[in-house]
């Protein structure tokens, strides 16, 4: 199995340009890890630890201050054509139908309209939105809109999906169901997924491996394999083995989360 994503000694410091807080912010101190083809890896960390920044760097939207990211053997300087991102907040275009939303990336790549249309219909079917092609986002629920965002990403046939807390704004029940949906899509398409979340349960539900990040300036505190069998059902997710992993991760995170709380109070 080859390595698709290599994050090598990445660090990121933000220079403060406005001159207000007097100084720079070290968001990421040193992050180093690998993701192999077909893996589902989650990044878990306390709020404000720089997860989004890290994903932006891997996605080519930000430059690291130090270190580098290698995607499919190429150094990342700008968004990689074979990596697609899904964001946490609402990122579908409200003025386009579901179908034309999915076609967006293909439009940018000047794919002809027939190919675009077929691909979009295929992908919408894959994420379970068949029948909703001509609806507008305002007519769809939150969960459906995030599925739409995922469909749009999938339409570009990426090898890698970079997902930044895509289900963060959904309620818990929808979230769980969306997680199952995502796993179904993953198993059908065998993409490589790097998934950010602050929910331990979600990370365990979905991933092969969980990387726990520390508080800012962040490093990888620990890498935890999730040997639970697939498919992950309610049964597998309530076993003792699973609970143990959850406790373990929480123990690590607890320390970091409290540090974050203290810092915010200090400010």
């Amino acid at each position, binding site marked *: 199995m080859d390595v698709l994503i290599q994050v090598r000694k990445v660090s990121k410091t933000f220079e403060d340009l406005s001159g207000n807080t007097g100084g720079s912010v070290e968001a990421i101190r040193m992050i180093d890890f690998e993701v192999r083809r077909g893996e589902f890896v989650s990044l878990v960390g306390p709020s404000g630890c720089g997860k989004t920044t890290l994903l932006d760097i891997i*996605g*080519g*939207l930000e430059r690291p201050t130090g270190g580098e990211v290698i995607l499919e053997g190429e150094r990342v300087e*700008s*968004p990689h*054509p074979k990596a*697609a*991102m899904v*964001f946490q*907040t*609402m*990122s579908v*275009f*409200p*003025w*386009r139908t579901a179908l034309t939303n999915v076609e*967006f*990336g293909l*439009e*940018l790549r000047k794919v002809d309209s027939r190919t675009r249309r077929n691909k979009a219909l295929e992908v919408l079917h894959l994420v379970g939105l068949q029948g909703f092609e001509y609806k*507008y986002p*305002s007519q769809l629920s*939150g969960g459906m*809109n995030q599925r739409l965002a995922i469909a749009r990403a999938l339409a*570009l046939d990426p090898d890698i999906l970079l997902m930044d807390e895509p289900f963060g*704004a*959904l309620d818990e029940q929808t979230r769980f169901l969306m997680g199952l949906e995502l796993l179904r899509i993953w198993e059908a398409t065998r993409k490589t997924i790097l998934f950010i979340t602050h929910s331990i349960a979600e990370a365990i539900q979905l991933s092969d491996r969980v990387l726990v990040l520390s508080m800012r300036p962040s490093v990888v505190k620990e890498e935890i394999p999730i040997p639970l069998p697939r498919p992950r059902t309610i049964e597998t997710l309530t076993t003792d083995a699973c609970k143990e992993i959850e406790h373990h991760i929480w123990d690590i995170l607890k320390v970091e989360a409290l540090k974050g709380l203290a810092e915010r109070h200090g400010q």
Partner: protein
Amino acid sequence: MTLYLTRVLQLGFLGALFVAFMGLSAAFPFFPSPAKVLGTTVTFLTTGEIYPHLGITLYETGFGFALSIVFGVAIGMALATNRTVGEIFEPLILSAYAVPKIILLPLLLTIFGVGLEAKVANAAIHGIFPVILNTVVGVREVNRVLLKLGRSMKATRWQTFQKIIFPSMVLPVFTGFRIAVGLAFLGALLAELFESKMGLGFLVTHFYNTAQIPKMLAVILFVFILTMSVNAGMKRTENSLSRWRVVWTF
């Protein structure tokens, strides 16, 4: 049910105004009764006395409006896309909004003379500010996540503008246009009231000076009905454009 009640109340309100108007005309003998005013308005429309003047005013308004949207959008976009330029000029434009622009009318008349140009210019000046401000807002309020998405898909600058920024701008800019129409109309009318030989504004002063009060009131009533209808129509279009409404939550 409530809609029905609302309509009833609105009719009641208008009815009360009508009655108040009647009382006014009883108290002030030279003040015509509302019935007479309405009658005169109808006569106006049928005899066609009003049409050449209406045409002139509409021409001035239309031309002024066109100028205000062309320059307004251009200036608005310049202010919103270029940060330094925006920071320098925006406060100036905001202050200009609060200045009674009618005060510029004599300047326009001095520069352009007493013809149509000054009226068009006045209409344009009145109309340009809401267009500028709404264009700025339209560009600024583009959802950041949408821009981020565009970047992650390697959209070119032109693609970003055409497919992300422009659609986001449609609604606020259209609102700006709606306000601008009313203000351009006002600008044209004010210029005509002040110094003119033709147009609806001229008619008002003319009828006043020749003591034809019913006709004067009829013109005013006509102007009001015209403005309110156009405004309502544009508002309806605005509402139907709601799928362009970018401000929303999960």
